[in-house]
């Protein structure tokens, strides 16, 4: 498999990848890290995809950082407010600059980070950097604009609200977490969203806390040099003042018993089931997360025995997928299933639980483990098909460790993990007292 990476480097990116790194790095691009005195980090990844540059700015603040009661959804709200003007640019001036750059521009928020991005032609790099620097350091929005934008957030909640899986997740996290802020979704509770218009001052405080260089990494990928990137970063972000706020996220106490919740859905739907176990946090040093990452597709992916039985053979389920993201704090290893007939809910739940239990007792098949390692490597190679796609792959890792190197480290762990390791780790996490199960059914439908 290492040959694959070597080939990738050699054929496509020979100018970028030094020879000595070819055999050991999964992430095949040469990159540079530059730390400014104020705590801001710049990661530059020159590629040979011509003309385009992707600028990603990753802030290590997401809904995880929303510690005050009644204040869920503010990291996401801020993703919106950041488009509401800054000291030197009105929203209209901002739009015009990005329009002239032919830019695709947007932002996203999740539990752990908020990511802002623009994909555009390289000749517009300086005006775009200057524009971004202003809003990150000198955001300026009126209370009226703030209130209007809070309604757009409500609009986002509304457009999501017809999807039952949004509600399923809301119930799952509220049940699985009691102290930690993963208890609320990134969108936040509806009552908190409806209260947002009244919280202008809190919003100012949120910006003051987190929109600081020590929380932020600039990622530039594409037709750009390190010198150019560093020069512009120093010029426009060099005066940014470091903050003082330190996030103090409440730790989730150990779970002592299995938990259950059910959701009544107002309109006709097929039943949904979420079966979750508390899992380990992201690590590029300890093997726990890596071991369960490898198990996830083996146990629950499309080529798993369970999928083949429930979806293809018995045809009782039409969607079955595991979800086990990378997070700084322990989160959930969840299996979602959409069940065709409500009478099969119990059966499907038992089958999923038995599969979790099975892998605490028997090691995974070596051939499947090897195939999974292969899949992970090719999957990354296939995804990195443009500068913006490379930035997209990197941004979550930048949010976790502020360096692309963590990808190589975690993939080295994947190489090390054995079948026995997976069994051992599974038996530590897939315990009944770590479990949360949520069922969503149409109101009035019989289970």
């Amino acid at each position: 498999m290492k040959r694959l990476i070597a080939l990738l480097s050699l054929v496509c990116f020979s100018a970028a990848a030094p020879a000595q790194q070819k055999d050991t790095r999964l992430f095949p691009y040469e990159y540079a890290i530059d730390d400014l005195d104020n705590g801001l980090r710049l990661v530059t990844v020159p590629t040979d995809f011509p003309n385009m540059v992707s600028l990603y700015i990753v802030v290590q603040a997401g809904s995880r950082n929303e510690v005050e009661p009644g204040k869920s959804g503010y990291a996401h709200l801020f993703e919106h407010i950041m488009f509401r003007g800054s000291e030197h640019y009105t929203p209209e001036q901002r739009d015009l600059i990005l329009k002239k750059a032919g830019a695709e521009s947007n932002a996203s928020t999740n539990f752990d980070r908020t990511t802002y991005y623009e994909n555009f032609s390289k000749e517009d790099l300086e005006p775009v950097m200057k524009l971004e620097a202003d809003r990150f350091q000198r955001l300026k929005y009126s209370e009226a604009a703030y209130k209007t934008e809070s309604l757009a957030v409500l609009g986002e909640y509304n457009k999501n609200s017809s999807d039952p899986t949004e509600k399923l997740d809301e119930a799952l996290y509220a049940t699985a977490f009691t102290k930690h802020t993963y208890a609320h979704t990134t969108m936040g509770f509806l009552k908190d969203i409806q209260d947002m218009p009244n919280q202008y001052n809190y919003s100012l405080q949120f910006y003051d806390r987190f929109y600081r260089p020590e929380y932020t990494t600039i990622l530039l990928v594409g037709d750009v040099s390190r010198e150019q990137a560093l020069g512009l970063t120093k010029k426009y972000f060099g005066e940014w003042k470091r903050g003082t706020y330190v996030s103090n996220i409440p730790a989730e106490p150990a779970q002592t018993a299995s938990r259950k919740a059910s959701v009544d859905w107002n309109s006709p739907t097929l039943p949904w089931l979420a079966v979750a176990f508390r899992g380990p946090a992201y690590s590029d040093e300890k093997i726990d997360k890596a071991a369960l990452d490898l198990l996830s597709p083996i146990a629950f992916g499309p080529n798993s025995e369970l999928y083949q039985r429930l979806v293809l053979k018995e045809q009782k389920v039409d969607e079955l997928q595991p979800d086990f993201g990378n997070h700084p704090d322990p989160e959930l290893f969840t299996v979602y299933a959409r069940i065709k007939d409500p009478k099969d809910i119990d059966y499907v739940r038992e089958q999923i639980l038995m599969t979790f239990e099975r892998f605490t007792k028997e090691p995974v098949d070596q051939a499947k483990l090897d195939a999974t390692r292969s899949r992970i490597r090719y999957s990354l190679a296939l995804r990195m098909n443009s500068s913006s796609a490379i930035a997209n792959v990197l941004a979550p890792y930048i949010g976790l460790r502020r360096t692309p190197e963590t990808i190589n480290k975690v993939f080295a762990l994947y190489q090390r993990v054995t079948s026995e390791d997976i069994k051992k780790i599974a038996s530590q996490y897939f315990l009944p007292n770590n479990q949360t199960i949520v069922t969503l059914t149409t109101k009035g439908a019989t289970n």
Partner: protein
Amino acid sequence: MRKIAIALLLCSSVLLASPNKIPSVVLPGTSPLVTFRIMFTTGSAFDPSGKEGVANLTASMLAQGGTRSLTYDQIVQALYPMASSVSSQVDKEMTVFSGTTHVENLDRYYALFKDMLLDPGFRPEDFKRLREEAINFLRVSLRQSNDEELGKEHLYNVIYAGHPYGHHNVGKVSSLEKLTIQDVRDFYRTHYTGANLVIGLAGGLPKGFAERVESDFKKLPDGITDKKRMDKPKLQAGTRIEIVTRDTRSTAISFGFPIEVNRSSKDWAALALVASYFGQHRSSNSYLYQRLREARGLNYGDYAYIEYFPRGMFLMTPDPNLARQQQIFQVWIRPVEAENSVFALRAALYEYDKLVRNGISKEVFETTREFLTKFANVLTQTQSARLGYAMDSRYYDIPEFDAYLKSQLAKITVDDVNAAIRRHLKTDRMRIVLVTKNADAIRDAILKNTPSPITYNSPKSKEIQDEDKIIETFRINVKPEDIAVVPVTRVFE
């Protein structure tokens, strides 16, 4: 990679086509990835009456079913270590099977891909699963889980009622329930022919690979080309509204009408510029977005289109290979709070009306042209997108997309754009779809022209307040018999 870009440019204009040759679009390069787009110029517009959904189900049976020698689970197992897959996309006049693999896996991947298309198993267990999946997609996923896509797709059904485009690409529930494996076999035999085939390949192709693919696909029967002239739908004059009722928090709105412009038309670039200015997809650089969302906080976004763009809530740029002879101009208003439904609809129609009456300014023309000229690079960033666009260019008989868009934009003036607005943007046959729980109240308010004042949570400028006064009584001219209230269970049925 710079060399590749030049190679792509040169090769994309060389379309291999001669009487005995399968038409191919080949974009060779030195990327270690190889992309396939195997297209049949057929689709849901060729579903026989009463068998709506058979085109899509046939494609699903190929992409998500077994071959004669391998069951589907064996195919999944074989694809797994390569991290590759075979996807199908069915639109009205195009069906495409696509996938990308690493060149190291090319032989193994292609062996599977080829058999899936050329030697399908048509197994009863796959048929049962995939037909049920199609029915559940319409009945549950689309009707009950995504009001925006429901509204957007239903608008097409309303506009194209009685036309070959008149049903969702996945079909109708009642037809799907009656389909048999024999229907799928028949569709495959008749439409998966050499006459409908276009081979698309891109990336680090080994020497002779394109020829090998062509030789393998010659196995298909010659058949007859599915070349049907699709006429502009004949709509009755006047506005018509369909209100789809379901129990939902908010109201989704879509409206539009047919246009006689597709990518090959003289006015395409001019109208593309208008749609970009008025409602660039998922961008704050959209005039409607600025008026409805930014200024008023009505919803999450407001966009306009001149080409079919499904799944827009999940995508920043459109999927290629959705080319059609007939297109509509469409406005998508993302869900609004129930009490603002009529105001939001009026506001969007008011802005549309202004656009039609006033056209666009020189300044707007210049900046939007600059945007689109550069944005072409964003649309064709990946190898797969470049290949898809090149195949669409073949379909429309136009040059390579980037160059075509840029050259067309360079040629036009603001006067051309405003003339195109006058020629193509109409209000005399508007079709409107709302998805809401408040059907009766909305129907009444529209028919009686009841004012729909709006209240805000923050002070608004005099300009907005004055405009709101106009919007709140903006008349939607529609006769009582032209507002239908439709239970969601009847949509796609």
